[in-house]
Each structure stands twice: as structure tokens, then as C-alpha cells.
């Protein structure tokens, strides 16, 4: 038996070589039907996510006093907020494109479901972000949200009035999960390529 059959690293290497050759991972050509602006929104979402993460790192480093009181801090705070708006807007337009193009066809259901997960967890990221502002807005949201969360029983371990817990979830846990899922989503897209438009399948 070869080492590819006996060791997990060998089997993994063979799997990657078979399913994701480098010409699929980093293609320099695309099928002719990809020649449309509607295919740009996925990468636009990722570009916005990079901006969200970069501004978030700066905000986390300098802290709430800086982002509330200094001009540069408020500027970075605004960039973080607006890049999140762009992230969600592009993600939803990307969702419309995939929904109306039935992007889950031909073995791509997993890719669709990972996208659904990214959307859901991004909403948690947004809510914990609103709770982490450390201003009257976040207090108002937290005081109102606690009743909704408590009514589900989730308040016993997810306390929206605990700023430390919300900030920790917002800056560590949720970004790590979103980033990992985005990488998985991208790899799944690269493995199967862009789905053919409806009506082109028979050709």
C-alpha cells in the first residue's frame, strides 16, 4: 500500500488534488455565462467583509473611549458601521441572484446552506455589535432585547445586558465563525464552479 492509502495526510492530499486542483482554486478563465455584473456581488460581499474586519481590529485595539471621543475614532466607527451596511446589502443582492438563478442546482445545495448559515450568523454579529456600542443606543437595545431573549429561556446563558459577554462574542467568536464559513463557502464554489444559467443545462 502507498502512503496515500495508509496515512490521513496522504489521503487528504489525494482528495484535495482530485477535488480542488489549483486551476479550479485560482482560475484565470470563467465560462462565458459568468460575463455579467450579477456575478460580482459575492466578491463585493467579501471585499466589504475585509473592510469590516480591518476597521473592527482598529476599534478593538483602541477601545470605546477612542471611538466615542476622538475624530479619528468616530471616523473608524463610521467606516465599521457603513462597511457592515455594504456587507449586508451586497450579501442580500448576492442571495437574490442565487435564488432567482437557482444556484443550489447540480450538487451545490451544501454551498447554498453554508451561505444561509453565514447570513444567520452575520445577523448575530450585527445584533451583538449594536449591543457593544457602549452608548445610550446600545443600552436601549439591550434593555428591550432582554425581555425577548428571556422569554425564550436563552437569557440564562446569553445575557444581552452583559456588555463584556456581548463584546467578546462580537469581536472573537462570531467573526471567527463567519470567516471560517466564508472560506468553506468559497472552496465549495471553486470545487464545482459557477452554476449554469437556467435553460443552458441541456447544451
Amino acid at each position: 500500500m502507498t502512503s496515500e492509502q495508509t496515512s490521513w495526510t496522504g489521503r487528504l492530499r489525494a482528495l484535495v488534488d482530485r477535488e480542488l486542483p489549483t486551476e479550479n482554486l485560482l482560475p484565470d478563465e470563467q465560462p462565458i455565462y459568468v460575463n455579467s455584473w450579477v456575478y460580482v456581488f459575492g466578491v463585493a460581499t467579501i471585499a466589504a467583509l475585509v473592510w469590516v474586519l480591518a476597521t473592527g481590529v482598529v476599534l478593538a485595539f483602541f477601545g470605546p473611549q477612542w471611538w466615542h471621543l476622538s475624530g479619528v475614532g468616530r471616523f473608524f466607527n463610521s467606516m465599521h458601521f457603513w462597511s457592515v451596511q455594504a456587507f449586508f446589502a451586497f450579501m442580500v443582492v448576492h442571495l437574490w441572484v442565487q435564488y432567482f438563478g437557482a444556484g443550489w442546482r447540480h450538487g451545490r445545495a451544501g454551498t447554498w446552506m453554508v451561505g444561509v448559515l453565514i447570513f444567520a450568523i452575520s445577523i448575530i454579529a450585527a445584533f451583538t455589535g449594536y449591543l457593544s456600542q457602549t452608548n445610550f443606543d446600545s443600552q436601549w437595545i439591550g434593555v428591550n432585547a432582554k425581555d425577548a431573549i428571556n422569554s425564550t429561556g436563552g437569557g440564562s446563558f446569553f445575557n444581552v445586558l452583559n456588555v463584556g459577554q456581548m463584546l467578546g462574542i462580537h469581536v472573537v467568536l462570531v467573526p471567527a465563525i463567519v470567516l471560517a464559513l466564508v472560506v468553506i463557502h468559497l472552496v465549495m464554489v471553486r470545487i464545482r464552479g459557477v452554476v449554469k444559467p437556467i435553460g443552458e443545462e441541456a447544451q
Partner: protein
Amino acid sequence: MDSPATYLHWGVILISVPNLIVIVTMLVVFGLALIAPFPHRDVAPDADRPSQGDSEK
């Protein structure tokens, strides 16, 4: 910026003007993406290389 947003109210629909602007912008961008020509360079097809997406995996 710290003042409350203006809200529009039709029957059961209640939406702030900023949210309405974002949603309308998204719809306009989606519509434009469907009809606007995409710039591209013409490349001669390479017969030796399989084109991804052509196969129905």
C-alpha cells in the same frame, strides 16, 4: 445624526426613510447588474483546458 429618523407609514407598513433608501438602492443595483454590459476581453478558447462549470458534477 443623533435625531430620530423620519418614518413613512402606509397601513401595516412602517419603515424609516434611511432603510427605504438602502432597500431601493439595492433593488436599483440588482436591476442595473442584470442589464448593464460587463466589460471583458476576448480570449481565444484553449481546447486543452477543461472549462469549469461545463461539467454537471
